[in-house]
Each structure stands twice: as structure tokens, then as C-alpha cells.
């Protein structure tokens, strides 16, 4: 096992372990911290795949900005107390069964993936910032430009939803 593989397995274990931590920990703050750890592990994977830009963006945007927002919301709404209502046994059981079936199905489907001739892309230089920029502004310039409409409508939405109007509880 060379160094590359050792790092890969370490990051994988970290990603899966902290992802389990997110859903298993009772305290929401711990969940968020585990999520940050997951993002760092995934960023490590990106670097292993020579996608440095993606790795940095992942850390800045997700682990940085979005997680800070998460923490703010949890602290402002005072969710760190364990107030989550307990689900009944039956619901839990149904959830486990249906989730397990989906997991089994996908596992069965993807088990012989190697044999089916999946295109494997080896690490290239595409993830470097220069090449990424070239691809983005040459091949994918239209999706890039049209997503401005998406962001514009999201901004309008934030304005429409955020402005204050008095609340009257509906009669029906």
C-alpha cells in the first residue's frame, strides 16, 4: 500500500465515519461539526483526483459559508436542546425496511459494475483552475450564463419572502 492509497482509505473512513456521526448524534451542533468533517474529507478526495479548484470551493462554500449559516440557525432557534419528538416504533421500523430495500437494490445493481464496462476516467488536468475556466467559458458557457436567470429569481424570491407583511391567521 503506497502513500496515495493510504491517504485514500484514511479519507474514506473519515468521510463515512463522520457522515454516520451526522445522523447518529443527538445534539444538532455535533451533527453540524461532523458535517464539516465530512466536507473536509471529501475535499481531500477531490485533491487526490487532482481537482484543486473543486476542493477549495467545497471548503470555502460548504464548510465555510453554509455551515456557519447552519450553526447560526441552530443557535438562534435554540435547537441544541433535545426537543425532537420521538417517532413511533412502527414508523422507525418502516423507515428501516424501506431504506434497507433501496440500499440492497442499488448495491445489487452496482455490484457487477466493473464487468459492464463503465468508463473510468483517470486523474487528468481537467480539475486545474486554468483548464476548468477554459471548459466553463467555451463548452459550458450557455448553462453558465442562463443560471443567472436562476439566481435572479432566487434573489427576487428572497426579497418577496423577506419583506414584512402583517400576519393574519386564515379562518379556514
Amino acid at each position, binding site marked *: 500500500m503506497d502513500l496515495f492509497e493510504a491517504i485514500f482509505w484514511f479519507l474514506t473512513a473519515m468521510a463515512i465515519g463522520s457522515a454516520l456521526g451526522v445522523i447518529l448524534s443527538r445534539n444538532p451542533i455535533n451533527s453540524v461539526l461532523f458535517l464539516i468533517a465530512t466536507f473536509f474529507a471529501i475535499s481531500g478526495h477531490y485533491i487526490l483526483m487532482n481537482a484543486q479548484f473543486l476542493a477549495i470551493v467545497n471548503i470555502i462554500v460548504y464548510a465555510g459559508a453554509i455551515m456557519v449559516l447552519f450553526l447560526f440557525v441552530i443557535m438562534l432557534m435554540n435547537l441544541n436542546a433535545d426537543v425532537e419528538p420521538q417517532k413511533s416504533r412502527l414508523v422507525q421500523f418502516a423507515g428501516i425496511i424501506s431504506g434497507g430495500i433501496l440500499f440492497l437494490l*442499488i448495491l445489487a*445493481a*452496482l*455490484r*457487477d*459494475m466493473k464487468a*459492464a*464496462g*463503465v*468508463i473510468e*476516467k483517470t486523474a487528468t488536468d481537467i480539475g486545474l483552475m486554468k483548464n476548468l475556466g477554459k471548459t466553463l467559458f*467555451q*463548452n*459550458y*458557457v*450557455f*448553462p453558465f450564463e*442562463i*443560471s443567472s*436567470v*436562476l439566481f*435572479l*429569481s*432566487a434573489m*427576487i*424570491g428572497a*426579497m*418577496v*419572502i423577506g*419583506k414584512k*407583511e*402583517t*400576519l*393574519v*391567521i*386564515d379562518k*379556514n
Partner: protein
Amino acid sequence: MKAIIAATIIGVIMMFASILSNNKSGIVSLATVLFFFLFGINIWEVYESINATGVAAPAYLNNMMSLDSFAIWFSMLMSGCALLYILLLGKEIAKVGKHVGEYFALIAFIMVGIYLLAGYSNMLMLFIGIEILSIPQYILAGSDKRNLKSTEASLKYFLMGSFSTGILLMGIAMLYGATGSFDIINFRMLQTDALNPLALSGILFLIIGLGFKVSAAPMHMWTPDVYDGSPTPFTAFMSTIVKAGVFVAFLRLFHASFGNLTNHWMMIVAVITATTLFIGNITAVFQQSVKRMLAYSSIAQAGFMLFAILSVNATAWQGIVIYAVAYSVATIGMFAVLIKLKDYTYDGFNGLAKKEPALAFFTTIFLMSLAGIPLTGGFMAKYFVLLAAVQQGQVMWLVIFALIMAAVSVYYYFKVIIAMYFKTGEAELNHEVTGYDKLMLGITCLLVILIGLMPQLLLNL
């Protein structure tokens, strides 16, 4: 391409209009003029594409879009429906809340999404189109902020919609893993025998993701609450034009890319269709509120539109166009009547025929079209999608089941007609029905009947 640019600019103009003016009726008039203009641009594009016969459909910007004659024609029809919607319900939109200009801007942006979905040829454009379509809808659903039900609808729609978008993205990623391409044409290379399991799971995820957006059962759970809770003018838009746009995206992907893989996904979609028809129609029977009944009926109608996905042939493409227009026109008309009433329950319609005979007559025509009575657009729409399925020949049991379900649907649509004509009562109106309202509803009625008599008008492909 012109229509996409024009709709974006119209959205921006509407934003600025709301900064510069507080006059609500002025903004509505401006929006009406701009949507006329948009419809004109669409007609110009259709005219150009007719003149350019023989030339291959232009592929824009590295095959991101392929605006073939079908895409341009469908965009034109949807713009026409949106224009009709604004003419009928423009004044009601102005009453929803304070930000009238923004509502119209969001509607214009949704139109951009529909144009993208009509002519995409790359999975990235599918994703961006679906998002441009969805995010304004989450906002429109919650635009009546004084009403708790509207806020609830918005939040529910946002959370579940985001989740389904995640599933859609997962499907796209799996297909990318299987083929190494985002181009929907390249998916044709997938082998029919010994299909790559990654691609198969991708297709399954795409069925679930798109099925959610068109409210096919069992991904329909959000529909009644969202359509019932949203302000009525926006429910009219979400349940008609937007749904039709997503259906065309669904159709394009499954016919153009996975058309040769039918034995892998046909059965899944058939079961989804049967469930959608059953749940939509049977639950609609038990509703007390007409608005909620229309929400379930929109699920049931989606079940019929799914027949076009099932049958991979040219009739299905014609069927989806006729169905989209006939269903949109009739439902928009029905909502335009519903919004005039104070009470949305069946009892609210009691005795409407005596008070407003014209309104009651128009409602009867719209409901007959939705039920699929001959001589109305709804009949021709159902005829074409079922014909496509019969030509396909593999799902005869489903066609018979659909006919039974169409018979069930007559029950709950006619309950409204019976309430209007045969029950005594005093139907209370929100406000006077003006001559303009009657004129517009009359034109809508004429359109419904025209589609029923001459559906080939919609098939200029």
C-alpha cells in the same frame, strides 16, 4: 433562442417596473402587453423555422440546445397559454400581495425554464431548466404571506422539491458515470441487452425525480397541500403550464435517449401511470373543496399524460401537445371561475346558474373538457394519448383501466355542474363579474371547443 432572451428581458423589465411604479393595474397592463410581445416573438420564431425546412435544426452553443420545430412550436403554444392566463387572471394576481411586479417577473422566468425544457439536448440544461421552473414556484406558492396555509405550502414544496431535485441530480450523475457524457443523444449508445447497471439506476432515479415534478403517484404527496394552499391564481399557473413544460422534458428524454430501452423502464412507468390514475381519481371523489378536487384532478390528468411517455411513437408527441394545451386552457378557465366565488366548497356553487347563467355555462364547458366529453378539447387530448398507447400495443390493460378511471372522473366533475344547475342556494361572489371577464371566459370556451373540433390546428409539426 429569441424567446428565451425575450422572456428574460421581460422578467427584468417587470422587476424595474415595480421599483418605478406603485400602480398595480398599470403593472398588470404592462405585463399583458409584454406577454403579447413574447407571444409575437414566439410566432416569429415559428415562422422562421417553417421557412427553414430542410435545414437541420440549429444546435446552439456546443449542443446545449437543439431547437427543432417541435420545441419552437411547443414554446409558442405555451406562450399562448401564458398570455391567456395573464388576460384571465392578471387582475387577481395583483390582489395576492404587495409585490405585483415581482410576481410577473417570476412568471416570465418560469417561461424561460419552459423554453429550455422544450428544446434541451444536454442534461445540464435539463437540470437548469427544472430549477428555473421550480424556484420561482416555491416563491409564488408562498406569496400570500398573510395566510398560514400559503406559507406552509411554500415550505413543503421547497423542502420536498429540493429533495427530488437531489434525486434527479443523482440520476444525471449515474448516467454520466455510465456514458461519460451529458449529451442526451449519446445516451442512445447504451446497449439494450446487458444494460449497464449504473445507467439503469440512473434511469430509475430520473423517473423518480421527474415523476415528482409532474406529481405522478407515489411521488404526488405534496400536490394537494401545495395546490390547495397556494394563492389560487398561482395554483392555476403551476398546475397547468409548468406541468406541461416538465412533461415535454420527460418525453424528450425518454423518447430521444431511452427509446430503445423500453423493456427496461416500460413496466415501471406503466405501474406509476396506473397508481397515478387510481389515486388521483379515487381521492378526488371524496374531496369537499373544489380547489382541492382540482388538485387531485391535476394528478389524475398527469396520469393520462404519462401515457405519452409510455408509448414511444410519433402519436405520443402529438398527444402531449394536444393534451398540454387542452388541459391548460380548460383548467385555467376553471380556476378563473373558481376565484370569483367566495366559498370554494361544492356548496359554494349552489344556484350559480340562476345568478350568473353565463358563468355557469362556461364552467360546464371547462368541466366537460376536463372529464373528456366529446366535442371538447379534453376528449381529443385523451383520444390522442390513448391512441398512442394502443399503437404501442404493450399496455392494453392500462388503456382499459384508464377508460374506467375517466368514467370515475365524470362523477366528481359533474358534481359541480349538478350543484350549479339543480341545487337551490345563493352562490356568493367575491366581486361582480364584469363584461371583460365574460368576454375572456367566452374566448377560452371557444378555444376549448375549437381544440375539440379541429385538433390538427395544434399539430403544425
